[in-house]
């Protein structure tokens, strides 16, 4: 699998700390005006214009089934570049706030727990321990796998009226 140790960008969601490999991060932007795209799952907030490129925006809170939080000035969008099926694409993920970039070495990372986590263990690369805190390291590609998204979309279709 992927190289586990290295630099991670950490951010918080509902007081929990998460991290994603820094190499996946393209940039961090503040809030931008999001265009809603109808008939998409709740966690897909819509699309934004990133300097001429249209990229989808996903709310990570909603994706992890946490309650929605109103966006404020601390809310950040992390633009990640993913490589799914050899196609590179950009996506913005909305998080409560971005914390810092930390160096986590291999021996500070433990395998993800097998059960009992709100976040699907598939999404986790492992648990990193930084300064006494535990950071959940996310496999961002799994999370925003576009295939999964398409599946979700087609699931949504039938329920569209109920939304």
């Amino acid at each position, binding site marked *: 699998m992927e190289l586990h140790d290295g630099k991670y960008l950490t951010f918080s969601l509902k007081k929990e700390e998460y991290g994603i490999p820094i190499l996946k991060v393209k940039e961090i932007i503040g809030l931008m005006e999001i*265009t809603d795209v109808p008939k*998409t799952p709740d966690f897909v907030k819509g*699309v934004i214009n990133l300097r001429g490129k249209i990229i989808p925006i996903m709310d990570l809170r909603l994706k992890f089934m946490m309650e929605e939080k109103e966006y404020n000035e601390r809310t950040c969008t992390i633009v990640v570049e993913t490589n799914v099926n050899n196609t590179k*694409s950009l996506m913005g993920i909305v998080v409560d706030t971005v914390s810092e970039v930390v160096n986590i070495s291999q021996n500070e990372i433990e395998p993800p727990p097998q059960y009992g986590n709100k976040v699907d263990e598939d999404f986790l690369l492992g648990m990193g321990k930084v300064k006494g805190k535990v950071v959940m390291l996310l496999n961002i590609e799994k999370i925003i796998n*576009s295939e999964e998204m398409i599946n979700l979309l087609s699931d949504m279709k039938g329920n*569209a009226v109920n939304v």
Partner: protein
Amino acid sequence: MNNEENMDDILKKILEEESFITSQTIDYQEYLPDFIARALEDLEVIETNALELDNDCENMEAINAMFRSFHNIKGSSGFVGQDVIQKIAHQTETLMDGCRKNTIKVNKQIIDLILNSVDFIKQICEDINITSDETFLEIVYVHLSNLEKISGKKDNNTEINSDIETDKINIDDINDDINDEYLYDFISETKEHLEIINKNMCGLKKDPANKDTMHNIFRSLHSIKGLAGFAGQTVIQRITHDTETLIDGCCKEIISPDENIIDLISKSNDYIEKICDDISLVKNQTFLEELHGHLSSIGNFKPTDDQLTKSVRKENPVNKSEEKEEPVIDLEEKETPAVESFVENFMQDFIEEAKEHIESIELKLLLLEKDTNNREIICSMFRSFHNIKGSAGFVNQTLIQKIAGQTEILIDKCRKDRCKVNKDIIDLILNSADLIKKVCDDNTLNTNKKFINDVDIHLHDLENTEVNFKNVPEEAFEAPQKLGEILVEQNILSEHEVKEILDKQKDYPELKFGQIAVKEGKTQVKEIIGAIRTQQSKVTAATEDYMRIATSRVDNLVDMIGELIINQSLVEQEVVGIFDSKNLNNLLRMSRITKDIQNLAMQLRMVSLKSTFNKITRIARDTINELGKDINFSTSGDETEIDRIITEKLNDPLVHLVKNAISHGIESKEERIKRNKESKGNVKVMAYNKRSCIYIEVADDGGGIDCQKVHKKALEKNLIDPNREYSEKEVLDFILLPGFSTVDNDNVNNISGRGVGMDVVKTEISKISGKIEIINKPGKGCTFILKIPVNHAVMNGTIVDINGQNYIIPTINLKKIIQPQEEDWISVQGIRSMIRVRDEIIPLINLNKVFGLANKEDSSKLIVIIEMDQKFKALPVKNVVGRREIVIKPVSPEFSQLKFVSSMSILGDGKVSLILDIENLFETEGAA
């Protein structure tokens, strides 16, 4: 010839070659994409010419162009290790050669074979892995054996070799004395290369297995070798050649690059450097002996591989000062294949360059005829021939080299007033030019005995002219005027100084202009070298016309410019009223420039329809042959430019339309005669520009469409409402319906008739927001007109507010905007589902359903009537915001499932807006 036996033979041959080539291949895979792109271009050229040849079997130009292209493919395919392609190209080339020499008569069969070859190569280019597919290879072998049967010349190769050998020996006699001129330059360039080698040697010492470093060294050595041959430095040539072979062996892992090897390479470097520092060393016996020892120790390490040993078989001690030419012969005849293909890449450049020179020579000869004393003309001709000679040597065109060399000598005589320019001499020079041109046009002439004979006679003539002036001592040539001119241009010397130096030169004829200039303290050595460089680069500068750019870069540029425009308009809105008139003017000028840039960027994406038309011409030809009809297919307006993305989308529809026209449109011969028409049918594809749209017409002069039959069929297939009267136009549009075909099921052939084609046409064309119009003249023919917006990336859109968010409707689909009255509504089961507009009842689009919105219908105050295929739908909107030119961006793959969005766009305020897919709106609603 027994086919099967033949096939086995070829199979064996291919297998042999295969293993041989793989062993030779240095890692050239990185060049593969570039190779494929080039090959496809070449294939296109071949196809075009093949089709031309089809019309005119005697078209020599087409044959030559095809030959060249196949030759290109052959050369570069070897380079990237695509041996199957190489084999096909080679065999086809042989066939073409036969055609060219009139030993094979061009007929339909030959053209078919050539086109087959093109197809095979194309297939491989599209999927490289297919070369490991057994079945595919088998088909290729059959094809190859067919080719060989027709070209039927197997022993060609051996002939070629012997011919070349004899050539080489002659050429060296001429070579010796001419080459000093470039020595100066050669040394400086060699030193540069040596520096590179030394740098790489350091790297190699650290990491002996590093192929990149080895390749770098190999390249530099090869360059030196080439230059050395050019400058007549056979000793250096010899050293570099041997060392090169050694490194080549390392690259191919035949020998492992250990310390000894690295030492040897370093030593070679030292020797070359020594020679560069003191050219006279090559005549120093002790030095040569020492060198010889070095070379033989290289020889001990040389690769044992069959192919490579062959190239060094003449390792026996050679007394260099006496048998100077010997190593040269070896080199030219035995250069490793990798090097050869490397050289072939330059071949095309060389030919073009040579042709340019010849052209200018011809022109100047005509001038010279009028003014036989014009030294300037003579000098410039001399330069041209000299250039040809130089580059010919580089690409192994010995014949050309020979001719140019001999002619150069003659012109030099004239230049130095040792020979009076008269008509005979002009004729001779013209003849030389003609011969070189011939060789350029037809590379195989190099091996054509008769032609070589002609050349020999000509060379003899040239020499004889010379004989009369033999008493005058020969010496090195130079191009003083030009060098002087350059130096004057660069303000290094004044004209007066140049003249002075030239005068001096008369006293010291053995010295070159540059040398005198330096000696006299007029210039620096550096400046002279610079001037010599300029002198050479001027020759090559004019050839570069095109460059290859990745499409993604152009797309990025267009994106960024779109962004620039958006920001520009944002700024403009802000500053109006704040800026004074002067600043406003500046701003306006800036926005104009931005718009210009946008236009330019858009043009970058425009390509001509040429390749599209070529493709359909090819398909038309195949279809006509398959059906055995007598049809004249023609195209016009292929210079019309269109967005690259659209040309891709146009292919399928055009193919279907053309196939339809050929198979259904044009009647059988008997019928045509019955209808008083020419027995030969006509199908024509035309493209033209009109009001920011491209029109493409596919017209046939066949029977036209039988409207009654269409109507009947449509009824039969339950595609239409039986209780309605349809206008003729509507009836014609039925043929665009999916599944519609007037051909009875048992008549479906493999060309058309299943009723898919026209549906494809319609969907594809509407995808690029185009329209189809059918003009039907029963009994006289039928014309399909495709109307496509020029620029796919920009369209006119109307922005509407649906439920508080902006959406874009393509203005082309917008029929009407109305403010409905209460009584216009028609409710079904208590839900407003239709609206009456002037006696027409138009179904309403259910926003809840389409957008998955909650029931907020009340906020919609306006109704937008959208139109598609003469059908209407009413779309309730809150407001109509405006209409403007918008830049279309594709939907990100995450949303590809959303059918109601065709694409996205960024509006003037920088916000993203979704463009509604009108077609989908009709479909989903129609089904509901």
